[in-house]
């Protein structure tokens, strides 16, 4: 299994191929479309993340000291971003998630293409992911 940093580096490499914002957006849209189906039972209010203009649901599970995430959104670009976050965070130990320094978003130049509102949504997602990890670590 790759480390969180390794995954981020990989994503950064992938984005270097894109010539302009529209290719990046197209890639995010495609990622969004291919996000694995979300379990309808988890599409509940308590899984909603505050602070996004679109609805974003995030669910997590913990098994064998590994946290897994699944997520969904009613907006496709949000789904694409979520897909990247899941790729980065899902399948790691709580302590790794808590310690992770998330730098790929800036490096792939997504920051400047995300409005403040979207960027806040993204921060809320990362915060929620870390809160889950903290909760699982405390449970141990």
């Amino acid at each position, binding site marked *: 299994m790759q480390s969180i940093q390794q995954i981020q580096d990989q994503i950064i490499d992938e984005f270097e191929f894109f010539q302009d914002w529209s290719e990046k957006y*197209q890639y995010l849209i495609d990622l969004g479309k291919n996000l694995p189906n979300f379990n309808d039972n988890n599409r509940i209010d308590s899984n909603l993340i505050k602070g996004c*203009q*679109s*609805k974003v649901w995030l669910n997590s599970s913990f098994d064998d000291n590994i946290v897994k995430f699944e997520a969904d959104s009613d907006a*496709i*670009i*949000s789904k694409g971003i979520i897909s990247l976050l899941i790729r980065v965070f899902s399948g790691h130990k709580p302590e790794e998630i808590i310690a992770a320094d998330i730098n790929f978003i800036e490096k792939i130049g997504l920051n400047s*293409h995300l*409005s403040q509102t*979207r960027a806040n949504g993204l921060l809320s997602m990362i915060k929620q992911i870390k809160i889950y990890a903290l909760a699982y670590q405390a449970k141990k």
Partner: protein
Amino acid sequence: MLDVYKIREDFPILGKKVNNTDLIYFDNAATSQTPNQVIDVISDYYKQHNSNIHRGLHSLSADATNKYERSRTIIKNHFGALHEHEIIFTSGTTHGINIISSGLEKLISENDELIVSEMEHHSNIVPWQMLCEKTGSKLKVIPINDNGTLNMNEYKSLLTPSVKFVFINHVSNSLGIINPIKEIINLAHTNNSKVLIDGAQGAAHFKINLSELDVDYYVASAHKLCGPTGVGFLYGKSVLLNSLPPYQGGGEMISNVTFNKTEYADLPHKFEAGTPNISGVIGFGAAIEYMNSIGFNHIESYEKELLDYATENLKKIKNIKIYGDVDDKISVISFNLGNHHPSDIGSILDQYGVAVRTGQHCTQPIMDHFNIPGTVRASFSFYNTKSEIDLFIDALKKASNMLG
């Protein structure tokens, strides 16, 4: 006729680039842009006249006071109030509505009813919900029809003797629909109910005469009228404003203070506690003068032209759904494209330099009515052009392709 290219020179921001492309600003219903004529008046205030007003004996203070009060006269004249003291300066529409909702606390009781509509901005819903919670009175809601207009028959049947107040927007900010406020006011008055009109969207697009309308209260914000942020006005009939208790306590609004007894000042000072937004009020006056120099009749007909042109061309796009597509509208178009989330459309349009608003537009009940998460809202102003609309529609088609 209006020379839009000449007018655009007054607005420095319209020459701005965003995301390496020309800005196309179609978010005018959220806030309008500000011409040099207003920006310069504000700068000039700070460079030549800045001083606290009303109580000062010195020349600078007299100067600032004159300019501040001159704005009150400009606004009184423009909106057809009878007296200067019927114009209360506020920090905006929301503040104006809250002055009234707080003032009514003692005047509304458990058996009274209030009416709002399903198409109101949250600013014209939440204060009345808070008032009902405090007083035990009941809030009744006029539903909208599926084309977005108010259901006037329902309004008539809701207007029972226990209704003390009706709160309606002049123009819906999310749909652009112009409400028949004259009829709404007349019906209410026949029923002995008072009416507050939320003019946040109305005041900017056509000239109105408040005393002829016979409206009881009217509120608006300068930042939607080419004016600065942080200022607006509340109009009220003298006799009604006099019957309300003051809103905030502070300097300006009192005439005599001892620890035994405090006397409140007369209108308009009673509602203008503390140092006001002096530069904002002066800028507001300049904005009204600027718009009058263009002429509201020209603004109205040109904006109608833009609306018709955009509506016609938008309708050619497959799977587009416009909400509130009726005749009596200001230049606002709210729509969705297929099943795409409005935020996806908005984000991509932004990359093409087109600024539109997406989401609920602070009118969640309308979105709930149509069972949608929100809309894309393009709102045009008299400084926008048809070629900007062309570029917007182009960008929209590209967004549609990208989203597949």
